[in-house]
């Protein structure tokens, strides 16, 4: 059984980049639409290339670090992050790719980590919420969430922070209406939408400014894709 990397390199089978293309028009935070458009593509293109169910080594690049894990192909990126790497900022909430609590950035794009198998993410740069903090230095989005009290229980908050970060990267001058649409891929139960909106709006009015952390990561991505 060839592994997926071989398939991609030989040009046969499906490539992750192909279905990223299909969804690139979707705004960063509408990851719900993203998952809906990608799943059928994956199914149709992977026919005849059924992967082994056995665990295999999977190397993931997360927050700039390489991690090799032994995982069955069915293990989601979310479970790998949470259970194998103890990166628990991404939360497991809905089981149904609906709520965005597990939002991470894959090659800069907001994605539900529960909607991806870990093996699919080899070769991609994965950014989790943990990357937005270095000791006492935090990304501006985190600062804004705290300033506007855009959280209560906080369980949806890291996912919302990631969705907001990605959305503002792509829409630095977003309007209120843009924000209300663009952050529609996440759900909060406590009712913190007001604070989140205020936070996103305030940053957008400053031109979606990136913090040093984000500048570095975005810079890396630009260099990679150039």
């Amino acid at each position, binding site marked *: 059984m060839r592994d997926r990397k071989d398939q991609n390199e030989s040009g046969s089978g499906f490539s992750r980049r192909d279905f990223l293309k299909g969804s690139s028009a979707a705004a960063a935070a509408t990851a719900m639409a993203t998952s809906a458009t990608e799943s059928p593509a994956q199914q149709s293109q992977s026919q005849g290339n059924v992967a082994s169910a056995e665990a295999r080594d999977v190397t993931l690049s997360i927050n700039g670090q390489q991690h090799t894990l032994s995982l*069955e192909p*069915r*293990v989601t990126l979310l*479970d790998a992050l*949470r*259970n194998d790497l*103890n*990166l*628990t*900022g*991404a*939360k*497991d*909430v*809905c*089981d*149904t790719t*609906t*709520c965005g*609590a597990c939002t991470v950035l894959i090659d800069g794009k907001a994605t539900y980590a529960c909607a991806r198998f870990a093996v699919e993410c080899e070769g991609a740069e994965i950014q*989790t*919420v*943990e990357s*937005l*903090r270095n000791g006492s230095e*935090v990304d501006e*989005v*985190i600062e804004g*969430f*705290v*300033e506007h*009290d*855009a*959280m*209560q*229980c*906080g*369980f*949806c*908050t*890291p996912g919302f*922070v990631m969705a907001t970060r990605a959305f503002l990267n792509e829409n630095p001058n977003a309007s209120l209406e843009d*924000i*209300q*649409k663009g*952050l*529609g891929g*996440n*759900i*909060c*139960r*406590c*009712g*913190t*939408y*007001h*604070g*989140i*909106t205020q936070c996103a709006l305030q940053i957008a009015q400053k031109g979606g400014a990136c913090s040093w952390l984000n500048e570095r990561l975005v810079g890396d991505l630009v260099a990679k894709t150039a």
Partner: protein
Amino acid sequence: MAERTIGWGPRSENRLIGSEVQRIDGVGKASGAAKYTADINTPGTLYAKLLTATIAAGKVTRLNVAPAEEMEGVHAVHVLNGEGAEIRYEGTLLAAVAAERPEIAEDAVRAIEVSYEPSEFFVDDDNLEAAEAAGRTKPQGENTQGDVEAALSAAKVVHKGYYGINTITHMCLEPHGSHCEFTGDEDLTVHLSTQNVSGTGGQFAGPLGIDESSVSIICNYIGGGFGSKFQAGEWGLACAQLAKKAGRPVRLMLDRSTELKIAGNRPSGFAEVTIAGDADGNITAWDSHHWGTSGINGSVVRLSLIPYVFEIENRNRKATGIVCNRGPNQAWRAPNHPQLSALTATAMDDLADKLGMDSYDLFKKNLDKTERPDVYAAEMEVGAKIIDWKAKWHPHGKGESRGGVKSGVGMALHTWGGRAHAAICQLKVHSDGTVESYGGSQDLGTGTKTIIAMTIAETFGIPMSKVKVHVGSNAYPKSGPSGGSTTVGGVSGPNRRASQEALWKIMDLVAAKYGVDADSVEAKDGYFRSGGKTICSWTQACRLIGPMPLEVQGTGPKDDGLTDQGVGGVQMADVSVDTETGIIRVNKFVCVQDCGLIIDLLTAKSQVLGGMIMGIAYALSEEQVMDNNTGRFINADLENYKLPRIGDVGELVAEMYQPDSEYDRGVIGLGEPPVISSGGALSNAVANAIGVRVPVLPMTPQRVLEALKGGQA
């Protein structure tokens, strides 16, 4: 400072209390560093998955877990309801499996062989006739006061209406669950997603046959509770049993579907209401019969609270519970109130319409029948200004239609107690000037830790960075469960008392050391002063404490004026309804809320805004949908159980009503009130827009269209 009496300081002298202070754990939560129960991964942790019943009623005729036990990677299987067990609702837990990996546990659950003998079930809670025919009704009381018949015949207008509000769930984003780990055979550490840190140890000890003193309960962060997380739960006990059998730590969180089916819901309420008034809009008679279900025990929302907020002289009321094969209810934010508010405020609004009155005027006219007419009147005035009521209200349905979109405004009132729960705190002042507070409370996201730190820092006149707050462990002095808006008073009272007492002790040390009169010493901005002169800094004063910390215990509640109970509140909504699609948009939604002394204005407003959004949810979109053919909860997931998203809530205004008279009352809880009157306010706004009542909440597009067609929603 002269007299040493417990109390809050003069409002104008507060440095922190009453201002907007960011929550102290905000960065931890937003950056993903905060560890919730679902995040606990101690070395060797096994993952548990559950097998649940797929029938609404019947018997388990076979349950063979051997195939699961034999699987590689499976460490323990625990049967909760085996052969012969009776099933009374879908989702009942049958067995739990703990395995090396979650996917192995899922395989093992699938390998378990189960069969049932189904029996008759009933889930149709709004159909009173069918429930009676099926023998599923339970009388839940009736009573009478005054002379309703006479009042009805003397009334200028009598209105009869049918109203309802469906069952909703708590939908905690962190499901119910725990992480259990034994040290040796006896000592059990439970990370529990709980609103009741101090009160759940015994629930584990008894069934496991261990001492209560051997159970440690820890909950540093909880991902939502809303009233549903006071118990260890059978899933909690199952987790502990698995950990015991496996000799390894186990984490068991309910999956989303099971969470919705069995971990709690808010009972439904449906009512036939007759309401009558005189020409001036005075409500003269009320007659209601309400029914609904809380699930299998067949209780119903409380009889004694209808009509809600308003005490009507001539009143008949009756309640009937329906026994349904649905998961058990749990307290849901402001138990009973949102349903009864919706059933009452909508009928009042329809009466106003029949009288040809502005419903604002009718509510105002009847404020003398409430417990706090002045507060409601003031709040209504503030709310009306913000929502521009006078410009926006029109007789029901008589507003302008813009391409089929019609707008309207509506309002409703609410009330809640919010008395402080019992609690103890242990305060430590160290010789380096740092302070710690310990209490077995929990921060549900309301800002409990922040308001404790504010209370202490305000009392000592020191920065909040000097204060460490410890909650979330049953090793700390006990604190009441966080429910019913009891926590803010529960924890601020004891911490204020302890801080004041500690401060007086430090003042005595300062007075002795520097030779001044202790009664003349004041603490402010990090310094001690006497007679207008600075004596020493806070840090210098704390050095006088010596190597052992100064410890003071604070208790509560007490009748010393720090806390109080009883609030009002008003909500007003401005909505647009698309009469072609039935879609309702909230344009603006206002809550004017009193709550006594506000400690943190920022988190207080967050509570109100959050309540309003939950109110929009149950008014417009969320509901438990049961299938009468299968008895199953068919939208038990986050995709089909509709919650509003960020673009669905409109402009929200949380206006805290805080004249000095409120400050002087002391601290009163705030969590429940702002979630109560949303259903009534939004329903009334929709009726004002389209001219017909959408009788049942949530007002889904389908129900709106049915109401417009004149059909039953």
